[in-house]
Each structure stands twice: as structure tokens, then as C-alpha cells.
């Protein structure tokens, strides 16, 4: 299988403080990787650096995505190239309806790919189809993005956007946080329905629970800015049972 993402010796800082201290990670097309680790280990920093959040500075290392230098691309071009982040805390955007937001996003992506903007009928049809995947209420589509949404609705909205944009590499940053069991199942089922052979997923989570629904091929443990352990799905179960203390002791 082809390498979709190669992270080599990645170091990154925020406000001068080094958070990532040499990450190495390779994701092949079609794989699902889980990244686990205790609070403050750098999981969210890794996802933010990958999508180009301006608050973080990469001080060393490189990231090759689809054979390209990912770090040289603007955040929007990373998106156009198929990188998607399901935010841990989706942002509320007052006054911008989901429909207008998604139309801008879809058409920006199409423009990047050299395609004409989608006509209104096709666009609304697409919205309807993708909404059904995550049981997103049609009423929500006319509301402002995430404004006044419950925790579950926000996360469903993230997966809905993922469905609309059909990314090649999806990063789910603690998508399970703030979800009850039913919402978790709906979100996870949505992710599973979107699975493609050429597309990969990075699942960032504290808990094994989400991995019951989204089965990882490989599990990594991130601690203190480095990946300290990599194994199969059984590692997640072991962490659930033993906690992170034994990892911390060894590192």
C-alpha cells in the first residue's frame, strides 16, 4: 500500500513552548490509526499542526502528504487536498447558515480542482443525502453553524461536513468527548459509512470506547510530545485496563 502521510521528526511549539518533540508516523492509504495518550501529551497539537493552525510553529521535521510538502500549503489548500479535521470544540459562527457555509466550502474545493461551482439543485440534493448519513435534522441546516447546537449536534455536524467534503485523510480529534452512547454510535456509524479504500483516518481519543465502533488497524501512544508505543488494536484494550501510568514510568 502507498504511504498517504509521512511525519518525520516533527517538532512544534506554541508560544515558545515545545509541545511536539520529534513525532514519526506513517499512515498508508486505507488505514485507520488511533492516537491515544494522557492529557497534555500533544495529541491536539499534532492535529492542529497538520491542518496548519497559525498559533503553532513547526521548528523541525517534515510532513509528506500525497507526496507533497504538507507544511508548505495554506490551511485552505490542505483542505482542498483532502485533509479534514473534526474539531474537538467546533466553533460557533453566528449569522452564517450551514447551507451557505457548506456551499462556500464545496465550491472552493471545486474551484481548486478546476470544476465549475455546483448548481443549487445538485447542491441541495447533496446536502440532503449527506445529512441522512448522520441523522442531522433538516432544521439545523438553516441555522447558523453550530450556534446553540448541543454537544451531540455539533459533532454530528462535523461528520456531516466530512461527508460533504469527502476527505482523503480525516483527523477525528476527540470526537467522542461530550457524546452520550447513542450520539457516539451515530457519529461512529457515519464515519464507518464514509470509509474508502484510498482514504485514511486518524482517531485521537482518550478512551477505548470510540474504538469499539471505529476499529483501528494500528494504535499509537503519544506521551510528552513523542510516540512512545505502537501496536495493534489490542493496545487500546490494555490501556483501558492498565491506564497510562506504566507508559509514563517507562518514558
Amino acid at each position, binding site marked *: 500500500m502507498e504511504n498517504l502521510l509521512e511525519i518525520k521528526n516533527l517538532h512544534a511549539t506554541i508560544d515558545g513552548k515545545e509541545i511536539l518533540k520529534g513525532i514519526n508516523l506513517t499512515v498508508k492509504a486505507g488505514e485507520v490509526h488511533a492516537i491515544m495518550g494522557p492529557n497534555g501529551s500533544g495529541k491536539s497539537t499534532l492535529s492542529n499542526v497538520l491542518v496548519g493552525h497559525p498559533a503553532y510553529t513547526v521548528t523541525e521535521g517534515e510532513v509528506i502528504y500525497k507526496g507533497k510538502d504538507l507544511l508548505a500549503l495554506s490551511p485552505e489548500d490542505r*483542505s482542498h487536498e483532502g485533509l479534514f479535521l473534526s474539531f474537538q470544540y467546533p466553533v460557533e459562527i453566528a449569522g452564517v447558515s450551514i447551507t451557505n457555509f457548506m456551499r462556500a*466550502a464545496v465550491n472552493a474545493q471545486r474551484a481548486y480542482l478546476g470544476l465549475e461551482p455546483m448548481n443549487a439543485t445538485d447542491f441541495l440534493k447533496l446536502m440532503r443525502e449527506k445529512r441522512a448519513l448522520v441523522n442531522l435534522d433538516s432544521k439545523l441546516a438553516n441555522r447558523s453553524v453550530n450556534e446553540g447546537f448541543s454537544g451531540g449536534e455539533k459533532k454530528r455536524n462535523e461528520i456531516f461536513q466530512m461527508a460533504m467534503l469527502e476527505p482523503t485523510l480525516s483527523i477525528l480529534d476527540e470526537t467522542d468527548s461530550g457524546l452520550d452512547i447513542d450520539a457516539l454510535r451515530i457519529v461512529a456509524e457515519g464515519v464507518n459509512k464514509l470509509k474508502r479504500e484510498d482514504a485514511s483516518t486518524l482517531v485521537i481519543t482518550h478512551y477505548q470506547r470510540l474504538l469499539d465502533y471505529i476499529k483501528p488497524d494500528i494504535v499509537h501512544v503519544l506521551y510528552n510530545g513523542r510516540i512512545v508505543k505502537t501496536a495493534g488494536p489490542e493496545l487500546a484494550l490494555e490501556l483501558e485496563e492498565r491506564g497510562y501510568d506504566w507508559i509514563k514510568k517507562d518514558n
Partner: protein
Amino acid sequence: MSNEQEYINLFCTNRELIEKPCAAMLNEERGKAFERFEERGFPGIKEENWLHTNVAAQFATDYGMNLGRVTTEAGTRDIFTCDVPNLGTHKAYIVNDSFQAAANNSSLPTGVLFGSLNAIASEQPELLTPYYNKLAANGDSIAQFNTLFVQDGIVLYIPRNIEINETIQIVSLLQSKVEMMSNRRLLVILEEGAKASLLMCDHSSAAHKSLSTQVTEVFVGAGASLDIYELEETSESNCRLTHLFVQQQADSRFNHCNITLTNGFTRNYVNVQLAGKGGDTNITGLAIGDRKQHIDNRTLVEHKTSHCTSNELYKYILDEESVGIFAGKMLIQPCAQQTISQQTNRNLCLTKCAHMYAQPQLEIYADDVKCSHGSTVGQLDENALFYMQQRGIPKEEARHLLMYAFAGEVFENIKIEALRDRLHLLVEKRFRGELNRCKGCSLCK
């Protein structure tokens, strides 16, 4: 010689010329206005109400005034084509400061008057005299200046219980081959139970410096209902000084939406007096500034009796080095019990060089009222911008979407759908930088 002295001399020297073509009603008010103007002069920047707006400096230019009433030859149809699509209006023009009727207007209901202030004041003085300058006489010295020099304008008079469904549109055009000043006057009278909506568009040519003063006196009779939408699309070389005086009787409704889309130096003053029980007033504004534009909105809502409601919303979006000033006051008199009043002012400063001066004020002398006010100044939400970029929306477009969303709240008060659509488009274009000039009319080309 100070600025005001030059204008005082100008008036004294040309009084005969100014008064000759004018109705007695206009001339009779000049004496008192002269006294008041001479006494006060132009407001200085040490005056509380003019701290950030140096209006005297705007009068320093040697403007031409059309005191001899030379007819403008320009056909309005040739220079103005900024019609609102899908909105048929009953239209009139004020070219510089002269009334010009529009062709192809449908006929208005019997008894309704819509035409030249000077002409109607000559023909039916008994109708207008009880209203003319009754509110503006108490205005500041710019209002006095207008009364002093005004020669024409527009009257809209709607008799009792007549409802006009078609939107009435007044288009002000300033165009001249020299620096030009225009002093225009509007008088809007709705008798008991009448209903109308008025769209006022203000355009100016960019070629020469221009200054306009505009005094509008509005009388909304008992149970009457009036919407006024004002849209400024002037140029950088224009100075616009407006006064809107509104007096509302019992159970009347007044809705004002004031949009500064493009401008140079603007000062708008809105004064609403709620003089009859059960009156409802709603005043909103949107100001979009960039470059070195100056937008000063001052409002005063006076609750003079009980059981009235007032609602105010003003929003500013300031880019580059533009300056915004908002001073809104709700004045609740001792007898105005059971008042409900709310004032909101929200502002976006997009650069470090943009300045916003906000002064929300409540002055309450009654003890059984519900009043609130709030004002904020902020920037675009960086988290929201990044969220949108992550979804592939280019940063510039994300900024526009957020700015547009911010402005959108003001449009909710526009009850004419075609106008709302038009404004949406204009604002969108404005943010994209495609509206430095209104491309539709040859004025701006």
C-alpha cells in the same frame, strides 16, 4: 475671517437672491435661523457632541451654491440607473438641491402630495406651515444653516387613513463641474392612520468636493405607520450632514434603517420624539467604512409620554483607517412610565488603524420602565476564521462571510424583500471591494 462669517456675509449679501424664487413659508423661517446661526456659529470640536467630528473644517472649501436656481440640464434618467431590481417605486429626484419629477410614475391616491417643497409651499401654505421647521427650529447650528439657505426639497403628504403600498423613492444626486454645496429639505407628513414606506438614496459625483446638508422633518400621526430606508452611496469627496427629526403621535409606528455603504465624511443625526401613548419606534443603522472614511451617527430618542417602545441597533464595520462614531441616547422623561427601550451598538474594527468611538447613553427620569443598552467593539473571530479555512474557504472569503453575517442583523428590519436582496448584494460587493463606485450610474464613472 472665520468660516461662519463668510457664510453670514454670503447670506446678507444674497438674501434677496435667495428669497426671490422661494415661498414665503421658507423665507419666514430664515430670520430666526440667522440669529441662531450667528450666535452659535459652526460647532467646535470642544463641544461634547462634536468631539470627533470637525465639521467646521468641512465648510472651509469655497463651495458654489445654486442660489440663482439655474436649472440643471442633466437628464436624471441618463445619470441614475441604480434602480432596485424587482421593486417598482414612485420616484422623485433632488438634483443638487432642486426637485425634479420622474417620468412614468403611477398616480398616487387622491389627496396625496408628493412634489417640490417650494412649489407646494407656494400653492398650499396653509397645509405645510403648521409643520415646516417646527421640529428643526430647535436643532443645532447645522440645522439652522440649512433653514437659512434652503430653497427647495420634497414634500410627502399623506391624508388620513390612506395607505400607499408602492414604495416612494427619493433619489438625491449631487453633480457639478465645480465644488458644490446643496442644502435640501424634506417634509414628510402622515396624517392619522396613514401608511407609507420611503426609500431615500444619496449619490454624489466623485469628481469635485461636495457638501450636502439635509434636514428631514417627519410627522407620524396617530396610528400611522412609516418606514424610512436611507442609503448613502456617495464618494470620498463628499460631506453629508443630515438631520432627521421625527414626531410620533399615539399608537404610531416608525421604522428607520440608515445604511452608509460608501461615503467620505458623514454625520447623521436622528431625533425621535415619542409624543403620544403607545408609539413604537425602531431605528437601525449599518456603517461600512474603509480608507479614511468618517461616519458619525448620533441618535436621540425622547420618550415624552407613557407606554411607548423604542428599539435601536447600530452596527459598524471599520476597515483600514476609517473612523466610526456612535452616540445614542434614550431619554425617558418623568411622565414616560411603562417605557420599554433597548439600545444595542456593535462594532468591528478590522485593523489597528480603524477607530471606533462609542457612547451609548440612557437617561431615565421615570421609575417604572424597562431599559437596557449595550455596546461592544471587537475583531473578527480568529477561531471562526480558521475553522472556515480548514473547510477550504479561502481566508478572504471567510472574512467576508463573517462580516456579512455581522451586518445581516440590520437587514432584518427591512420589510421590502427586493430592497433587502439588493442590499445583500451591494454589501457583499462592497466587502469584495467591487463597490468603490456604483457602476450603475454615470455619475460615478
